[in-house]
């Protein structure tokens, strides 16, 4: 028989999905597409839990409505598996064009909607972000800041809500002809301590979470 303290009890992988499914989506579009161009992609988020990474799967579609504006919509398959519909939509706009080594800047805004299929509880989180990017040929480097806004922060139990949930990220994309590959490192919600019972979330100075995200997309 073993007599382990409760703090040593194992964590199941599925418990970690609580964190993964709800709080982690990668940046969809950094540099607006050309007018009329479509991009359809799959993303795999890999936020860190304990000593490993776990996959969060999502899909998205985007269309350039002009050379400076791209609309996008996405869905998180991992949330669906748990009984929550999580979809997102928004627009990315070119703000400052790139000039040589001076980065281009794009601005995004949109929202994330969640609905429980159990009791139809609904939450909507507007989000906005800003991306600095360097594009040379098929290569795109970016640094981004994004925040979700929680207009229903007061619905959190025991006043645990917060109005904003910011994240910082940096990534690389290879946009070559009809295909785009993406990798992004993201620090999530880095203004509060995230917590899962009997699990460890690697953080930055004790705050937030972090993860690596991959994506693959086709352009047409």
């Amino acid at each position, binding site marked *: *028989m073993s007599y382990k303290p409760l703090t040593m009890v194992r964590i199941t992988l599925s418990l970690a999905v609580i964190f993964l499914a709800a709080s982690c989506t990668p940046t969809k579009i950094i540099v607006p597409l050309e007018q009329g161009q479509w991009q359809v992609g799959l993303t795999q988020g890999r936020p860190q839990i304990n000593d490993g990474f776990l996959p969060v799967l999502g899909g998205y579609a985007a269309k350039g409505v002009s050379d400076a504006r791209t609309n996008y919509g996405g869905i998180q398959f991992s949330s*669906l*598996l748990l009984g929550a*519909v999580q979809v997102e939509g928004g627009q990315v706009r070119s703000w400052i064009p790139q000039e040589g080594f001076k980065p281009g800047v794009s601005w995004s805004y949109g929202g994330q909607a969640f609905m429980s299929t*159990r009791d139809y509880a609904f939450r909507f989180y507007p989000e906005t972000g800003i991306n600095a990017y360097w594009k040379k040929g098929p290569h795109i480097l970016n640094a981004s800041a994004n925040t979700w806004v929680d207009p229903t922060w007061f619905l959190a*139990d*025991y006043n645990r809500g917060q109005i904003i949930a910011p994240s910082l990220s940096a990534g690389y994309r290879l946009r070559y002809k009809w295909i785009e590959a993406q990798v992004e490192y993201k620090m999530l919600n880095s203004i509060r301590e995230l917590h899962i*019972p009997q699990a460890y979330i690697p953080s930055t100075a004790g705050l937030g979470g972090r993860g690596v995200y991959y994506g693959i997309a086709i352009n047409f």
Partner: protein
Amino acid sequence: MRLFFALFVSALLLPSCADVSAAMFAGGDGTYDFKNEWLDPEYHVDESKIHLMNFRSDEDTIYALYVGDIAQIATDTIILYLHGNASSMDNFWETAGLFANLGGAHHYGFMMYDYRGFGWSTGRSTGAESMAADYDAVVAYLESQDLTSDRLVVVANSLGSLPAGPAAAGGSRIAINKLVMEVPQSTSNVIMQNATGLSLPSSMITSYKFDLGKNMADYTGELLWMHGTADDVAPFETAEAAMQQHNGSYYQEAIYQDMGHGLRWDIGDEEWAGTILDFIRR
């Protein structure tokens, strides 16, 4: 916007509704090798007083351990221990030994049990209903042995606080009048919200909804709440908010600075047992 709404409507048709509640339970194998050789000498018990039992709970079989004289149930105070999220009662045999010696050797009868999916208990714990049914199966036995409300003490550790809350709030066939909540959780929503930093309700991922604050508000008996401020499994602040909803006949806190979720190991058996014994005797 059309794309957004098309995705939303499509998504409504797809969910499989997997539920994380079952996965949150850390049930596993058990050996039930309850012997003195595994205990510190000071917690040795009379091995003739070790009784492994099983009860029906819906379609499943629940295993329980009683330490003491069976006849004692009709006349003496009985401690019913609802254990934490570990694989089986094996992990709490030392705790059983401690309780069996609380106030003297076999001064109180002691019972604990494995929830469905823990140890030898069959089936799978899935949420409030299965936990309540398992609790009721055990209490029904105690009732059949003539245990009465004035001699029942429920001690709930961590996960055990989840079935203990509704039971204390009126869901126990033997009314609870003395309750110890050791390192309890608070609400299912808090777990979700602490994990995401968002105001998401727990129904996004599980049908297991619990609210110990509401339970404590509805509980009229005596409560001892024990917690460490450095608990990284059941956060102190939200547990405090839930326990302080208690509006019953007596309320006592035992707060330990910088102590964690393994409270008994952190503060030592003497302090842990002494606090509980004082509460039982008051």
